Every structure is written in C-alpha cells, then in structure tokens.
C-alpha cells in the first residue's frame, strides 16, 4: 500500500534522507524507528506530498500522493498534532475536514468519541488542549475518512501510559482488519509492542529493516557472568563481537552455544545466557543509530 523507492532529500550540502526504500503491506503495522533528526519526519512528509523529494518517489495505494483525488478517504495522515489552529474548537477542526472530504457529519461525533474526546473537550479551543489531547484529535482527524492506510508521525508523543496502551490496541485492531499502518517513533519500546515490521533509520539511511521477529532473532545473545571483567576478556579472546548491554550484561553477535562454550573453556560462572530478544533489539537500535543523534544536536 505504501511504496517508498529510493527517496532522497538534500538541503544544500546536508542529506536529510538518503536513498530510503521500504514497503508497507495491508494488514501490517510498520514501525519507523530512529533517533530525532534521523529523517523520519522528512520521509513521511515526502510520502504525503508535503516536501518535494530531491530524487526517488513514493506511492500510496498505487499512486503518488499528490495525484490522489480525495486522499482523506484513502489515507489518514497525522504528521504533527500541534499543527492545528489554536483558535478553532476540536469539533470545528474535524468538521472542516469532514466537509472537505465529503464525509457525513455524524462521523465527527463518532470519531471524537472513538478517540476519547468528550463533548466538553470537543467544544474547547485546540489552543487549550494538552499535547495528549492534540494527539487524540489528530488521530480522530486521520481516521475521519475511514481510510485504509494510516501514516502517523510520533503519535504516542504526549500520551500518558494508558493512552499509549489504548492507541496500540486501536492500531493493532485497525491492521488486523486489513489496514496498513506506518508509524514513527524514536522509542523502540513504544513501537515493538504493536509493530509487525520495523524500518530503522539513522542519519537519513535505512540501517535495518525486516519483520520484528526476524530482527529480534538476529539480535544475538545476552550473557552475564559473576565476573563481568573476565567475561569481557574471554569474549575478546574468542573473537566474539560483544557490546555492553544497557543493564550490565553483554550482547554478543553469536549463537548462545558459541558464547557458552567460550565461557566454559575459560571456567567462568555464567548467571545468564539467552537469545537477546528485545534487549538485543534495543542494543541494535542504539548501536545502529549511534552518531546519528549527535548530528541532530548540530542541525
């Protein structure tokens, strides 16, 4: 449903998005992961025709976004929840969109209800909304035309934990009914609970992509020993590439058997040895995107 082919965006000498290619299929949630400034938003804006790409192309439902006659009925877009007129009420914001798309007015109340904005909240001006409420309004706006594709940029920003849990359920359900979801985040934990596929971007380039399980499986082995220092030396001696994990252990890019053997040969007592799973993916995410986030500070 979403095809991104070799999208590149250059701003002068700076390449914000560099040859990004991926696909999103119906029935799946694709997590678009990367640190701030990695090029996620720019890529999404290019998909939605907001930013002209320097090269490459993107299509949604088989067509470039700008050629869709009534895109709101096919694609729900939430690029920035704060980009709403502060002086309009929530209900008015949706009413304008409903009229533009030719959607029945009853849908406005239905979608407000769906995202948990009650009548009082709907009557307030958006300027008085919290970020979480704006995200809900933005989600209502995206869902208003009953689209088959959702493109959401950092939709969990500003939502409380319960709100994040609620949104996961909504998106999972939406995809299970055949919808296509592309959602970005700079937090791995936020996305891994709901995504089927992951596209990891750093410094404008895709650094990893594939099924979540596939990426998890390839994430290596987590190992912990009573003597961490000796373990480090042992792993180095056995030429097993290891990086210090977030919580004390090591993540090794090798099978558990190879790591266990090396430890046994060295006579070490292991306290933990298992496939790294999500911890490994986090490690992968951190290492793959390392350096990209420091560039962000300069940009």
């Amino acid at each position, binding site marked *: 449903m979403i095809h991104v082919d070799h999208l590149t965006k250059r701003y002068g000498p700076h390449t914000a998005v560099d040859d990004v290619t991926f696909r999103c299929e119906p029935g799946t949630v694709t997590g678009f992961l990367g640190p701030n400034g990695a090029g996620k*938003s720019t890529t999404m*804006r290019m998909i*939605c*025709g*907001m*930013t*002209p790409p320097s090269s490459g192309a993107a299509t949604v439902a088989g067509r470039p*976004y*700008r*050629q*869709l*006659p*009534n*895109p*709101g*009925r*096919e694609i729900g*877009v939430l*690029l*920035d929840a*704060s*980009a*709403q*007129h*502060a*002086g*309009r009420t929530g209900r008015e*914001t949706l009413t*304008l*969109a409903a*009229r*533009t*798309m*030719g959607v029945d007015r009853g849908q406005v109340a239905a979608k407000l209800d*769906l995202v*948990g904005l009650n009548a009082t*909240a709907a009557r307030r*001006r958006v300027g008085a909304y*919290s970020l*979480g*409420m704006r995200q*809900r309004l933005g989600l209502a*706006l995206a*869902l208003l*035309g*009953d*689209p*088959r594709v959702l493109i959401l940029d950092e939709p969990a920003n500003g939502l*409380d934990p*319960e*709100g994040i*849990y*609620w949104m996961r*359920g*909504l998106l999972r*359900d*939406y995809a299970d*009914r*055949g*919808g296509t979801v592309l959602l970005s985040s700079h937090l791995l934990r936020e996305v891994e609970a709901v995504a089927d596929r992951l596209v990891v971007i750093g410094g404008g380039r895709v650094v990893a992509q594939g099924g979540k399980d596939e990426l998890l499986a390839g994430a290596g082995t987590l190992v912990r020993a009573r003597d961490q220092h000796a373990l480090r030396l042992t792993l180095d001696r056995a030429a097993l590439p290891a990086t210090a994990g977030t919580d004390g252990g090591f993540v090794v890019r090798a099978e558990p058997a190879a790591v266990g053997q090396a430890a046994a040969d060295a006579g070490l007592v292991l306290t933990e040895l298992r496939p790294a799973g999500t911890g490994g993916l986090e490690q992968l995410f951190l290492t793959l995107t390392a350096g990209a986030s420091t560039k962000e500070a300069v940009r």
Partner: protein
Amino acid sequence: MTTATAPTPTAAHARPEPAATSPSLARLTQVELRKLADTRAGRWLLITIGLIAVAIVVVQLFVTDAAEQTFSAFFEPSLLPVGLLLPVLGILSITSEWSQRTALTTFALVPRRERVIVAKLTAVVLAALGSVLVSLVVAAAGTLAAKATGGAGAWTFDWRMLPHAAVFQVGSVLLGAGFGLLLLNTPLAIVTYLLLPTVWSVLAAMIEGLRGPARWLDTSYTMGALLGPDVTAGQWARLGVSLVVWVLLPLVAGLFRTLRREVS
C-alpha cells in the same frame, strides 16, 4: 482522557468504495468561507468590518447637514474604512494556514494546492461582495433613521456606484490576498500592505520623476476613483495597470511559491 475501553474503529476494509472524486471547488469554497468565521480572530474581524460600516452611518447622522442625508451620502463613506480592513481578511485567510500550520492538514486533504488557493480567493471575493451588501443595508437603515430624525432621508442613489463599489472592495481584498500569498507571513504582509500607500506618497513628494508613475501605480490613488459614480476611461486604465502590478503579479508569483513550498 484516560479511557482504555476496547477500541472499535470502523473496519478499514468494510467500506465499499473509496470516494474517488475530488472535492468540488464549490465545496472547497464553502469550507474556506467557514474558515473565515470559525476562529475568534476571524469572527471579530468580520464583526469589526460590520461595526465600522454602522459607525460611519451613525456619525453621518450627527455631523452632516439634514439636507445632505441621502442614501448615497450614507453608502459612499462606509466603503473606504471597510476597504481598509478587507485586505487584512484576504491576508489572514492565506497566511494563517502557515502561521497556524494548518497547511499541513489542508494540503494533506487537498494535495492539489492550486485548488485550495482558488477556493480561498473565491471565498474572500464573496466576502468582499458581502461587505458591499452590508454597506447597502446599513445605508438604507441610515436613510430611514435620517427621515425619522428630520433629515432629508432621500433615496437618491446613482446605480453606477454599485459596480464601482464592488470592484473597489474586490480589488481591496485581492490586494491583501496577493500580498499574503506572496509573503506567506501575517505580520510582514499586513505591514507591507499598510505601508505601501504611505511609501508612495512620501516618495512621490520627494522625487519629482515618480509623480507620473505614481498616478498609475499607487493603488490608493487609482482605486479612489471608484468611490464616485463617474469613472473615466483614463481612470479605468490606470486602475487596471495598478491592479495588474499589485494584485495579479503577486497572486501569480505567490501561487508558484505556494505550489513549490515545503510544508512542515
């Protein structure tokens, strides 16, 4: 705000057919008209325009001689102050999309941006024509009030005034819209629009050679001719030239700028 009820979004695939037709220009114009009035700032701008028309008539009731209190005398003076505010309406309708960043939503729903611009221009032109109607109604009320308070209250009106007034107000609102579209920035556009006539008069006073061109390019001068029933061919020509320079060119350049501009 923290409801965690089981979500029931409308089935993504259950919909029979996606609406494959673009929203018509009429529908987009309706939406843009609604946008003019659905924010506090917009509503107050419209109310202010109406109140100014009323205030002018009330002042006329007190200051002009009883014999001069005719329909025409009430109608004409209301045009100028209203025409001063209409460009602000034109500017805001374009620039607020950028300053409030609603362009992100607007262009997501209507990616063919030129259609949005055409709808916006149509909406502000309709608003300008509406303002002429308001001026007519207020002038009629003023005439009735004049009759009741011992004034002339005569219904004398040169009907040629009406198309002139319409051109004046439409020109004014498009002047603002052109500046807004070209500059895409509210304060910059408003300041430029407000300063321009002053700059012309100052320059024309200082530089002898500019006085000739000013008669063709200073819109406050060329459009002023429309405030009476008689407009000569020469005045129409000067009006046309000034409108091409200050309305048509900014609109065309601004349209290209808007089509190419990155929305973020």
